[in-house]
């Protein structure tokens, strides 16, 4: 009965979302308050119904009710409870249900939490939100029903793909979706503003926190996915420029541009059209990501055309959402009133450059992701676009971005003194030059990109520190006064400091682990010894271990340096008999200086029972990536926790204009 309750809740939810798509808009057109207010009731109802459906599906997984097809194909009675719960969103159908659940929860947030929003704007926003909801609910019910039943039920399930039975990946989709779907609110606000033809102060007030919340979740989601790929796939790589990764990275880049642009809209009442366009694009890229992953397009273009029902449905939804909102933008944007003026050298201009660079970077990733798909669809030729392309296109853009972002926060609003700022950054420039020389000295034959990147990371870190020190007047006033100022600095400011520093830390990790990685792959038998990055590793042997739903063959490696014992590593191969596949569990010894990473593979041939393929990697500084990404997310949370409203105070022009002074 429980699955059917979930099913009925879903069909009711579709009906409710259709009402919410139409009634509030009618209300705004006819000035009818009752119709506009119905959006609040329907959003509560929607959340209740979709929540009920999600609960019903999760319940079916927890009690292993194999009459539900989705449970039978993605779960197994012997699976650990955590992964039974996580399997709720492990499948295509379940993940869509999670998507919609998050969507309606965000809608509920708008309808209950957001105060000071004019009723008309709220009604329009919730109606737009309901369009998206109706699109996804109908997609689910007609092409991917999570409550499809099977009777008589199979005696046991097929088990979830064991690669996905992992804590990192259990949490990855919810965070990713919180990010994707979080952008939907900003999108709905933007479309509502476009319908209305103007931007309310409330709009500008709310767009930044919503974007930031979504961005924090998306950051965590991407990092979890990357971390999972690092330790679970057994390669030691953390980013592959794979289309699946790219489609989550693009909304992140666009979202980063969006909340920087939203700062200008909030503080300076400017960049309104630009912010709206970015809001539309960011969510469109989120939809594109969902489409690319959920349509099977990635497995192969051919597979997509064999079973096109789902793909076509999302493609049509995507066309309506992106085409419709961009058309609306084209029609309405010219009518939007402009904002405050600013000089070519100012905080606004810096943020504009940030936006342009991020948009260009997004475009290069979009091109690299879609071009192979288009080429395969048109000519049938299969190509893969990998690191060489991105190193030549994406990375240089980001390096310029890093160079500029070091300067941006030091500029004041409206008009700024670039020379003065650069003068303050002199010692930072010297320091980064020293860093570049040091890297070049240590690794003379190494990649130039590594030298440049490390210099830029130091440049960014130094300027962040300079900016903070300037804010609290470190050294200019007594230390106690500086500390008082440090305490009084708004949390949103600390958010910026932490996030920018986090990016610098990430860059150091990116460079270290890709430019200076060392790798050894050998056939090992008990007693084999090898040397890597100063460590001596000895392969002791392999033993069998039994897990809850798998059989593990666990190797023991003894690691020592200069004759002293350092640690023991236990990489595993796990065989899941029900799912009929195996996973790699790598063993990693993590330190700040670098990770020692070991994984094993089955014997190459039947005749060589005792010989294992052993892969040992030393990846310097890789942990800096996770620390840096954590700082990025922490920065977002800090900024979000600052509930203050923000107004940009233009600094009074003191005396003469600064630029001509030196020139004379």
């Amino acid at each position, binding site marked *: 009965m429980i699955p059917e309750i979930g099913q009925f809740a879903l*069909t009711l939810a579709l009906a409710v979302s259709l*009402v919410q798509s139409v009634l509030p808009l009618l209300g705004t057109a006819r000035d009818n308050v009752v119709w506009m207010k119905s959006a609040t009731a329907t959003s509560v109802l929607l959340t209740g119904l979709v929540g009920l459906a999600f609960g019903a599906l999760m319940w079916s997984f927890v009690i292993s009710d194999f009459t539900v097809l989705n449970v039978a194909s993605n779960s197994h009675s012997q699976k650990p409870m955590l992964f039974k719960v996580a399997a709720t969103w492990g499948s295509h159908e379940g993940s869509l249900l999670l998507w919609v659940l998050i969507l309606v929860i965000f809608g509920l947030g708008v309808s209950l939490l957001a105060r000071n929003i*004019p009723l008309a704007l709220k009604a329009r926003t919730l109606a737009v939100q309901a369009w998206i909801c109706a699109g996804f609910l109908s997609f689910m019910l007609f092409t991917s029903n999570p409550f499809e039943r099977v009777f008589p039920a199979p005696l046991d399930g097929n088990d979830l793909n064991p690669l996905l039975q992992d804590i990192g990946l259990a949490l990855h989709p919810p965070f990713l979706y919180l990010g994707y779907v979080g952008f939907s609110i900003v999108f709905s606000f933007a479309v509502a503003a476009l319908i209305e033809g103007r931007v309310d102060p409330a709009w500008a007030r709310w767009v930044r926190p919503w974007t930031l919340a979504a961005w924090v979740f998306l950051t965590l989601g991407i990092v979890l996915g990357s971390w999972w790929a690092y330790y679970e796939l057994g390669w030691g790589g953390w980013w592959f420029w794979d289309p699946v990764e790219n489609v989550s990275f693009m909304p992140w880049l666009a979202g980063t541009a969006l909340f920087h642009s939203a700062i200008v809209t909030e503080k300076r009442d400017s960049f309104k059209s630009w912010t709206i366009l970015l809001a539309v694009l960011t969510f469109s890229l989120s939809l594109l990501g969902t489409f690319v992953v959920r349509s099977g397009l990635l497995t192969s273009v051919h597979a997509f055309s064999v079973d096109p029902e789902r793909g076509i449905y999302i493609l049509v939804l995507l066309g309506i959402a992106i085409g419709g909102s961009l058309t609306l933008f084209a029609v309405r944007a010219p009518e939007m009133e402009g904002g405050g003026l600013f000089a070519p050298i100012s905080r606004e201009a810096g943020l504009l450059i940030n936006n342009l660079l991020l948009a260009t970077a997004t475009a290069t990733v979009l091109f690299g992701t879609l071009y192979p798909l288009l080429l395969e669809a048109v000519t049938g030729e299969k190509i893969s676009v990998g690191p060489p392309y991105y190193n030549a296109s994406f990375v240089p853009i980001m390096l310029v971005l890093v160079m500029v972002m070091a300067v941006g926060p030091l500029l004041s609003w409206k008009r700024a003194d670039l020379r003065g700022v650069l003068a303050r950054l002199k010692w930072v420039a010297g320091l980064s030059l020293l860093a570049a020389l040091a890297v070049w000295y240590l690794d003379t034959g190494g990649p130039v990109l590594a030298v440049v990147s490390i210099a830029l990371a130091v440049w960014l870190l130094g300027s962040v520190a300079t900016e903070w020190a300037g804010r609290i007047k470190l050294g200019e006033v007594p230390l106690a006064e500086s500390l008082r100022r440090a305490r009084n600095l708004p949390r949103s400011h600390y958010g910026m400091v932490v996030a920018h520093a986090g990016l610098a830390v990430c860059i150091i990790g990116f460079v270290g682990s890709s430019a200076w990685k060392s790798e050894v792959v050998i056939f090992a038998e008990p007693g084999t010894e090898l040397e890597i990055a100063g460590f001596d590793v000895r392969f002791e042997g392999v033993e069998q271990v039994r897990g809850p739903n798998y059989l593990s063959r666990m190797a023991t490696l003894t690691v020592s340096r200069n004759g002293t014992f350092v640690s023991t590593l236990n990489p595993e191969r796990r065989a899941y008999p029900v799912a009929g596949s195996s996973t790699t569990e790598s063993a990693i010894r993590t330190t700040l200086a670098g990770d020692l990473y070991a994984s094993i593979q089955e014997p190459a041939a039947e005749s060589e029972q005792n010989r294992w393929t052993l892969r040992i990697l030393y990846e310097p500084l890789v942990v800096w990536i996770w620390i840096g990404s954590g700082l990025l997310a922490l920065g977002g949370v800090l900024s979000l926790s600052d509930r203050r409203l923000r107004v940009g105070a233009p600094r009074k022009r003191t005396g003469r204009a600064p630029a001509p002074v030196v020139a004379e």
Partner: protein
Amino acid sequence: MIWIVFSVMAAAAFLTLAFSGTSRKTSVLSRHESASAIFADQITEVERDQERGIISAGECKAAKAEIERRLRAIDRQADGEPTARPSGRALVLAAALAVPALGAALYWQVGSPGIPSQPFAERAGEQAQAREIADLAAKLKARLELDETGGPTDGWAMLGQTYMRMGRYEDAAGAFARVQDRPEVTSALASQYGEALVYAEDGIVTPKASRVFDRALELDPANPAASFYQALALEQAGAPDAAYDLLQARIESEDGYRPWMDSFAAQMNRIAALVGLPGVDLADLAPAMPGPTAEQAATAEQMSDEDRQAFIRSMVERLAARMQENPGDLDGWMRLGKAYAVLGESNSARDAYSRAKVLADDLPQDDPRRAGIDRALLEL
């Protein structure tokens, strides 16, 4: 029970929506009020920042001036604000009624209210039964293996079929393989072996399986399962057109509808959709035999044996009368012959089949009906 829950859900949805907007709190936030509230908040913030020394007095003044400028800009645009008019309740009620109606209609399409939940923990009986079957299969296998003569063919066939039902396809293939070289192996047994091989390979007809199906067709050219998998093999080898033609030829070689044709037609339609061939309707390819209608059959069920014989006879006589009017209908003569054979009237049956045989002389040599007629005449 389930319908009660559904009714409660539908009623809750209806009530929530129907009573929305009826709260006494009819305050409506207009654009101007919203903007003023936000700007007032901002001014408080700016003043607090100045108190905490984050911004200077001059900056504070500039910021306040900026906020006031924005408020004036909003004021200039002030236009028709929504007014609290509690009208339009009728539309809300209509929408509230539409929700359960539409929800129920959709549920009618996609739901399966008749299927109960089956938590794994409550299925101990089934699990025990499955274990019991597994035990029995294991015992049967042990006994067959101990048998010095290699075990009876029937035994191995049964073991293979049991494994197939348990989903242990490789074991099933192993069991069927034991008897394939025996002289008494039938076409059905060969094609079951082939089917097990296909299932064990996740639906791929391997060359080995294909040879097994060839053998099954040698033993009996009319084995439909073997033809089905041969067509699948052709499709997997990249010749969907040939697969389609083979399936079609096999259906057309019969004189009327057979139950296995449903899966053939479904397979043809699947291939047709993939490569752009015309879809098929089984009713066109293999017209259903003009047998008794459901009503007639139901009547026959309730009759005594004598009555039933009489009923069948009357039907046969009607068919015979039709054949006199239309003596060129080969399939009709075959059906009449079969009907007489069932009634035990060998002479009439032989006559009917003889008429069919004359007509069948015009058929191509490999038409299965020729063999069918010869076999029937032999048996009579």
